[in-house]
């Protein structure tokens, strides 16, 4: 507020020195409400009503000042200024420049994205082995079967490992029902007893797999092979 101070002080002093209007005295608000209005904590409508009353009641003006002396002053956030139509139509220069920089940055980002997409679509994909599949271990046993096997001579054969290797053989139905688990096989072949195949119907496919235990203790598992029972 930049009014002429002496004039204003005269007015403020006179405002405090005015005489009480007797008619208004019976309508004085409760002191607690007066205190809360001065603190700004009372609801707005009530607050304004009390200010209206204070403007014509000397006693409540004094009480209001007393509340202020006790520290009852409004605190908290002040309502923010809303942008006017003029300020929207005529923004300051710094805001125009900032807006221009924002637009340039957005355009640059969009161009980078477009280049990245084009490069992804246009450049040939490098041919390479899929990384999600393990490379076959050369020591893994490989099936040596060339034909179907009979129930009487169901001999499974596989490539041998180094000298001293032992093998574990697993045989299941196509439904993965285990038929046989033979451990510590010393030769790269195994004759499955016909009793194991008693419930298997001729022409049914069976799955088998060999795990070789190398002399150094390492274990290498073969692929799963399919063999048909004649």
């Amino acid at each position, binding site marked *: 507020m930049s009014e002429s101070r002496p004039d204003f002080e005269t007015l403020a002093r006179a405002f405090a020195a005015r005489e009480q209007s007797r008619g208004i005295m019976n309508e004085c608000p409760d002191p607690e409400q007066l205190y809360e209005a001065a603190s700004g904590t009372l609801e707005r409508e009530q607050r304004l009503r009390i200010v209206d009353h204070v403007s014509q009641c000397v006693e409540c003006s004094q009480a209001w000042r007393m509340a202020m002396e006790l520290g009852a002053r409004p605190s908290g956030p002040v309502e923010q*200024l809303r942008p006017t139509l003029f300020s929207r139509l005529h923004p300051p220069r710094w805001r125009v420049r900032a807006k221009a920089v924002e637009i340039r940055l957005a355009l640059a980002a969009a161009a980078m994205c477009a280049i990245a997409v084009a490069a992804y679509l246009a450049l040939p994909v490098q041919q390479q082995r899929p990384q999600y599949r393990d490379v076959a271990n050369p020591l893994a046993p490989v099936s040596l079967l060339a034909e179907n096997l009979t129930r009487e001579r169901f001999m499974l054969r596989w490539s041998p490992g180094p000298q001293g290797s032992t093998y574990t053989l697993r045989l299941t139905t196509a439904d993965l029902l285990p038929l046989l688990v033979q451990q510590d096989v010393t030769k790269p072949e195994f004759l499955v007893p016909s009793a194991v195949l008693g419930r298997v119907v001729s022409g049914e496919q069976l799955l088998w797999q060999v795990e070789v235990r190398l002399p150094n203790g390492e274990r290498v598992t073969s692929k799963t092979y399919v063999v048909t029972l004649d």
Partner: protein
Amino acid sequence: MQEVGTLDETGPGLHAAFEARNHHALHRDLERAVRRVCPKSLAEDAEDLVQECFIRLLRARKLGSENTLSAAYIKKVAYSTVVDEIRRRRRRLAADPAPSHVDVETAADESPAPSPDTALGNAMEICLQRLQPDRRRALTLHLLGHSGSEVARILGCNPKRAENLTHRGLAQLREYLNDMGLSP
């Protein structure tokens, strides 16, 4: 001064109610708050007002009010007690213009002698009522000593508008006073 109960008369629960706070510290805070707003005419009765504050605090506590011993609540209670007493005395004066027990000094304090400012103040009050409500409120708060941001908070508007209302209200008030032959 109306009769107020002493601490001992209010029942055995009083000290228990205030046990969380040192009694002397509470008394000191109340006394400080009362004396800060107590007009000269009530200075002799300040201790009675402090006791009245005690009673009010106790009643509020019995009613289950929260934060009855917070500094802000103590100030509010002290303030209400003093304002109520001032009003009570004014009503008594209004009802009985020449009471036998009111001394001259007190009466003088409560009814100040007319001063050069009084006429201007009375005229201001008339002129204020002619202003638009928003301008009148802003100007009233400014005359009471509130800053621009405080006026904005009380009126619930932004500071720029509060400042505008105050300036325009002040200009209009001066015009009205000039029309009445008063020029501050």
